[in-house]
């Protein structure tokens, strides 16, 4: 009772102090980031949508219009549709590979006790926090004719022809899985760290095998993290234009590279805007599916109780 009374009094005092500089500062303090996000995130996205309906004029100029021609050109061209399909395919493959590597890694990192943990977490985080060109360069060396993979191959089989890895889907998938893995591990570790160890200990003491504990306790409880991780790993593929630019070929074209080429090289902003907007729509659909998936998991969990 005293609690609510004191908070009521506090509220009255705060209300009476509208002119108090401290109270005023507290109320206005939210404004900077909110205003900045509205002006330099929401408005740019609206500008992007607007330009996607503009017309391209030769010489890198554009003409204000309300035409659907960029979208019809995209949807009417088998080349772009193939690229769209390929983007989805790479997104799915990369997400699954990230999950296969990321789930055991996240589980181990949460449950293991070692003094090397900060170092290991640093190894997990650094690809997110280092320049993507560093990674591109490293993969160019690793996959190159004179790189470690081919050196090892020639050492083992001296008569072998060096492998051509750069320009193949393998190079794209490996480099993108590497870049996406930290994105998968972040939500997974957060989710797994919320599962009490005591649940697993209890199941083990009742004779459950490791596999049973994983499939019946850890994986269902970590499902929101799994869905979140897959979503962000997929999204990272939608941003990755540098990997296909340097490690790919015509056969590994994906939409992010198309965006880069249309905006940066061909100076066709309206068409680039349309492709970017299509990528944004894909992201929103994925987020929607992820949210639905989470609801479904929650409902299934409740009905199985």
């Amino acid at each position: 009772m005293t609690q609510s009374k004191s908070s009521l009094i506090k509220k009255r005092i705060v209300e009476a102090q509208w002119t108090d500089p401290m109270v005023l500062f507290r109320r206005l303090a939210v404004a900077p980031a909110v205003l900045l996000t509205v002006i330099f995130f929401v408005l740019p996205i609206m500008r992007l949508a607007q330009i996607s309906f503009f017309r391209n004029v030769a010489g890198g100029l554009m003409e204000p219009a309300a035409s659907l021609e960029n979208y019809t050109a995209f949807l009417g061209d088998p080349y772009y549709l193939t690229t769209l399909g390929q983007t989805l395919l790479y997104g799915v493959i990369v997400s699954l590979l990230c999950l296969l590597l990321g789930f055991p890694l996240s589980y181990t990192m949460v449950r293991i006790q070692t003094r090397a943990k900060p170092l290991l977490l640093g190894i997990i985080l650094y690809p997110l926090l280092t320049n993507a060109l560093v990674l591109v360069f490293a993969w160019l060396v690793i996959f190159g004719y004179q790189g470690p993979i081919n050196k090892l191959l020639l050492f083992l089989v001296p008569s072998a022809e060096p492998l051509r890895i750069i320009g193949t889907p393998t190079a794209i998938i490996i480099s993108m899985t590497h870049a996406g893995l930290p994105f998968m591990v972040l939500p997974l570790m957060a989710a797994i760290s919320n599962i009490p160890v005591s649940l697993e200990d209890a199941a083990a003491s009742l004779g459950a095998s490791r596999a049973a504990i994983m499939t019946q306790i850890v994986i269902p409880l970590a499902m929101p993290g799994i869905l979140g991780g897959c979503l962000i790993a997929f999204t990272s593929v939608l941003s990755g234009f540098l990997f296909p630019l340097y490690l790919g070929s015509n056969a590994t074209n994906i939409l992010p590279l198309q965006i880069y080429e249309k905006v940066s090289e061909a100076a066709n902003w309206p068409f680039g805007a349309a492709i970017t907007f299509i990528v944004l729509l894909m992201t929103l659909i994925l987020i929607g599916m992820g949210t639905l998936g989470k609801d479904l998991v929650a409902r299934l969990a409740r009905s199985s109780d």
Partner: protein
Amino acid sequence: MKKVGPGMLIVSAIALLFLVAPIFVAIPLAFSNARTLIFPPPGWSLMWFEAFFKRPDFVKGLRISLVSATASTILVTLIAGITAYGVVHMHGTKKRLVSLLLNVPLLIPVLVIGIAMLFFLARLRLSGTLPGLILGQVMLCLPLVFLIILAALENYNPNLEDAAASLGAPPLLVFREAVLPQVTTGLAAGAALAFITSMADTTMSLFLRGPGATPLPAAMIAYMRARIDPMIGSSAVIFLCISIVFLIIINRLIGFEAVMGVREE
């Protein structure tokens, strides 16, 4: 019973080796004495670092990258810090809405944000200028830094301010004695993350570059059009060193677990 099974441990070890492999390849190559990307290098030399610092576009690019990262770090830490302070004092639906708005950009591909930013800043005649690049990196860092500072403020006690104020302390004294000591670590961690994120940025650097503002990643990409040699490796080492130093700082300040939202046992 051991908590983690052998299968899990083996896959984890493979994943960690996979994650760390590029470092062990990129660093030695920067010290190579060969002209091609031969690995392991036939011999060692500092010639590629020398070549790096002899190229005006790379040196200027590095300076612009450092300047824009410093400027965006200061701006974003101030903005995110002030806003996080405001959010800590909010409750209920309003708080949830503000957090949601500030977190949405994290779900959108960086490339989409970069292209939208280019189109918008071009309209304001800011694309291709240093202020435009700084603004782009501010927007890139803002959601992340806000999240980190807010997480660090989880145990923030607003009653200390009220207590100090009710005892007659003037606002500046309240700020210095009751607010600042509680937020310093969070702000420092946020600033370190902002700097690292700006230095790691390629998207804004590439799309918002201009004649007066060509950051190092843009200079590197222009160079890589003609050839790819170990000099790119020497830039890679510079970038890696910056990332590693600031990762260590973040770990010392708040620990990686706090950054990753992982609950400690």
